[in-house]
């Protein structure tokens, strides 16, 4: 027990680490590498635990993080004036993030499309800044040196992506607590069907405040998706994705919308 607690304390024997790395580099002996892996399993577990609230079994995360550790061991240059843990931590975290990024796709999407999707996303943002208006698909395709059809395909695949925010920079919840219900009066001008209005109120409760805000800005204020993206400081494609999800939730919840 005391030993286990000691292992969890994230303290490592530097001299032994150095000696094992020197041995491993000289011999390439798998057993030496295994010993290094065992020595740093507590780091793996510590880092994996930081991701356990994201809905994946801890054992799976430890397995993924261990792959990261092995990669770090294989790449670490013992001559570098840097602690192994300093070197290994970003590699292990990177492996965990990649795992979540890949797991984030609700259906199997080829990696080529996943990567193109990310590139399209970045290009939309940079082009919007550069040309000071919303780009066309042709312009995005030209910038990425792909066809318009590939861009369309990549954009559509984002619908299959359950976004998991790993760094909090694209959080689905903006800080403020927006509720479209407060604006429901505006609906009266648009909607006369009482049944619809009541169901809409109930359906809105299934949306996050950010989704309600996007719905409000797009359909009640008439802002474009790019304008909403800029206001909420998220990407246009993220707005597109949330808007689609929002409409799907409403369709499921509202009787007349779903007949």
């Amino acid at each position, binding site marked *: 027990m005391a030993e286990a607690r000691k292992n969890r304390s994230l303290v490592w024997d530097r001299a032994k680490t150095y000696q094992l790395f020197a041995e491993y580099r000289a011999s390439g002996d798998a057993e030496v590498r295994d010993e290094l892996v065992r020595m740093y399993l507590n780091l793996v577990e510590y880092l994996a635990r930081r991701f356990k609230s994201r809905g994946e079994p801890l054992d799976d995360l430890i397995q993924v993080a261990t792959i990261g550790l092995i990669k770090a061991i294989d790449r670490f240059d013992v001559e570098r004036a840097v602690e192994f843990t300093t070197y290994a931590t970003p590699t292990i975290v990177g492996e965990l993030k990649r795992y979540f990024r890949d797991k984030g796709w609700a259906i199997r999407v080829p990696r080529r499309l996943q990567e193109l999707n990310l590139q399209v996303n970045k290009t*939309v943002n940079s082009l919007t800044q550069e040309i000071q*208006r*919303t*780009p*066309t*698909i*042709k312009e*995005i395709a030209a910038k990425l040196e792909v066809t*318009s*059809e590939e*861009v*369309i*395909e990549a*954009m*559509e695949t984002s619908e299959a992506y359950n976004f998991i925010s790993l760094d909090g920079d694209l959080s689905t919840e903006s800080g403020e607590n927006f509720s479209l219900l407060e604006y429901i009066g505006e609906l009266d001008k*648009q*909607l*006369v*069907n009482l049944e*619809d209005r009541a169901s*809409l109120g109930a359906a809105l409760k299934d949306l996050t405040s950010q989704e309600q805000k996007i719905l409000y800005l*797009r*359909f009640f204020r*008439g802002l*474009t*998706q*790019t304008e909403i993206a800029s206001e909420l400081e998220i990407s*246009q494609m993220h707005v*597109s994705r949330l*808007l*689609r999800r929002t*409409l799907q939730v*409403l*369709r499921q919840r*509202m009787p*007349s*919308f779903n*007949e």
Partner: protein
Amino acid sequence: MVESNGRIYLELPIEKEFARLLRLLVSGIASRMDFDLDAVDDLKIAVEEAFLAAMRRQVESPVKISFISSPTSLAIELKGKIAPGARDSSADDFGNFILEAVVDELKYGDSQTDFNLHLIKNL
């Protein structure tokens, strides 16, 4: 599917999963016409809503969809036969509210037996 002089015609079974096909198709057409990304997304929402409107109206398969492009706009029309005995549920305020927000013109030319929805998005 036939394409000539900016006209594309398509017949689809009236089943939900074909809405995605329509989204892809309208993206391709709109992209060729140089609609910007916001307008392309609006059109994707529009065709999906229009398709669902046809489903709600109990249009029989296949629904006929036409895309007519001009230098200034894209017109989309959905036509079909309404199933005998289908109840009139065209008063879908929220669906129409969404449609109105994403296109420039929206017109129903429904009768008791025919479904006809006409949408125009200006460039």
